[in-house]
């Protein structure tokens, strides 16, 4: 599944390598990836490279394929065509913080149990959690400020504490790259600032990839932006312009301090579309099942 595409990538394609001067090969790379759940592709000919030092925001409308792209990069989905190449040094440790809503609060687990799930790795049957794994989980709990609630049941936590628990779980595996899917959803405003600060701190050690529909909270942290709406537009400068939004949403938009939601200033070519429905421009049917 990690094999490079058999046919060479044509020079004319929009590869991030064109933009990024870094010499080291990317840690994770999507090459001309096309994927869909049903007949229609959700993503088409997507190229993306994530390198050491990146703080990448994956931006785009609902159903545009943001979560799908992350799942492909993580190896949870296999592309129809193209390839995802991973060059991780330590056995391919990915840190993944899924969307908050998938969390089952009734599950009989304490915070520590959830975090220790992050260091499953390879182990022998019957083996207990290794001392190294336990230590990594303890460090992750400490880092996320969860020591005081470590023995509490997950149902006794606030939204912010649950999000911290999920990040700690990802960190317990000592990942080489961290993916977060809508980390600020279901989190109160007070907690947002501290979460972004935490991510900026983590970014000093590993690349951070954030899927978000709202760039504003990450404005100071983000270095690269990928706009995904079936196709992918990569912006190595990390600044959002009206042109970029128009490119991805397919209509001229007013750039408020929030990248999205935005006001539609003109309808786009396809006159049949209600301009207020432009958020579903991607493929609402194909991408709808996973909220991507």
């Amino acid at each position, binding site marked *: 599944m990690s094999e490079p595409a058999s046919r060479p990538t044509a020079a004319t394609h929009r590869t991030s390598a064109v933009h990024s001067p870094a010499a080291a090969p990317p840690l994770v790379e999507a090459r001309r990836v096309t994927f869909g759940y049903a007949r229609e592709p959700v993503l088409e000919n997507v190229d993306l490279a994530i390198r050491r030092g990146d703080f990448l925001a994956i931006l785009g409308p609902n159903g545009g394929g943001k979560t799908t792209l992350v799942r492909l990069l993580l190896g949870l989905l296999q592309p129809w065509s193209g390839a995802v190449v991973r060059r991780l040094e330590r056995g391919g440790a990915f840190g993944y913080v899924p969307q908050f809503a998938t969390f089952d609060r009734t599950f009989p687990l304490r915070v520590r149990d959830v975090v220790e799930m992050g260091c499953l790795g390879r182990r022998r049957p019957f083996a207990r959690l290794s001392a190294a794994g336990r230590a990594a989980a303890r460090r992750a709990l400490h880092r996320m400020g969860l020591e005081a609630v470590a023995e509490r049941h997950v149902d006794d936590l606030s939204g912010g504490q649950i999000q911290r628990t999920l990040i700690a779980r990802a960190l317990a595996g000592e990942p080489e790259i961290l993916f977060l899917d809508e980390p600020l959803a*279901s989190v109160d405003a007070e907690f947002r600032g501290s979460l972004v600060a935490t991510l900026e701190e983590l970014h000093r050690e590993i690349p951070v990839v954030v899927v978000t529909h709202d760039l504003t909270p990450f404005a100071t942290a983000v270095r690269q932006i990928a706009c995904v709406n079936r196709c992918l537009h990569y912006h190595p400068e990390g600044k959002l312009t009206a042109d970029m939004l128009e490119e991805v949403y397919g209509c001229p938009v007013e750039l408020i301090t929030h990248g999205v939601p935005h006001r539609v200033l003109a309808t786009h070519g396809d006159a049949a579309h209600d301009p207020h429905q432009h958020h579903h421009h991607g493929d609402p049917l194909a991408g709808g099942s996973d909220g991507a």
Partner: protein
Amino acid sequence: MHLGDFLAYDFLRHALLAGLAASVLCGVVGTLMVVKRLVFFGAGLSHAAFGGLGLCHFLGLDPTLGAAAVAVLAALALGGDDRRRPRDATIGILWAVGMAAGIVFIHFTPGYAPDLLSYLFGNVLAVGGREVVLVWVLAGAVALALAAFYRETVAVAFDEEFAAVQGVPTGAVTTAILLVTALSVVFLIQLVGIVLVIALLTVPPVVALTLFRDFKSVVLAATLFGAVMTTGGLLLSYAYDLPSGPAMVLLGAAFLPVATLIRRWRQRRGASTQAPSPRAPAPPVRPVG
């Protein structure tokens, strides 16, 4: 009632031993079914299995064999469901078709017609030495498998996608859980029957989940409650001449309000000893995206 008399009967000894093996299945398989939302799935399998049971009865083969074959096939088919129709609808169809087929087969079986009620609600008299051995083999295998792959199993049950990112073979673990569910259902049919088997697999875990909050404690407590439920049910049925399956189910169900009261009492005590509420104001969990 005298316990010595109770144990003097072969069939009661067998029922008791099968009940203790069943309690291991309550603890391990039942808990996984409840947390993975497989209760309706299990109930569907037990009713679908009746079709295989009836077929083997008609052909003069061992009915348990037919029930096991149908339950396993149905579990695999449902596990690989491609979501072209809602899974609970498929389960409902298998449920009804299995029952209909079973009754038709039994209807056409010449000679002595077996007591339908004993299939539906269980019959301890039917539990022989061979069944006891089979149930213990299954219980032992299931307990051993959970001990070997405890962390993987819990990780898959809690968050399949995250487990997959870590390289856990989630497909294999999920299939194993479905297969074990199917086999447990079939072997427990003998004890409490097709209709009541689901109570045996859900009441002990739900009582345990009400009282305990980490997975290991829940599994152990559910096993213990399962043992109390099956043994107590047998004793009640012996002492008061009650049908054994319903006695077990009703005894187990009586624990549910007790467990809820204990939980409330604990919460009230916890709230009064800790000055600020331990529960930070949590925003309601809403699906995003």
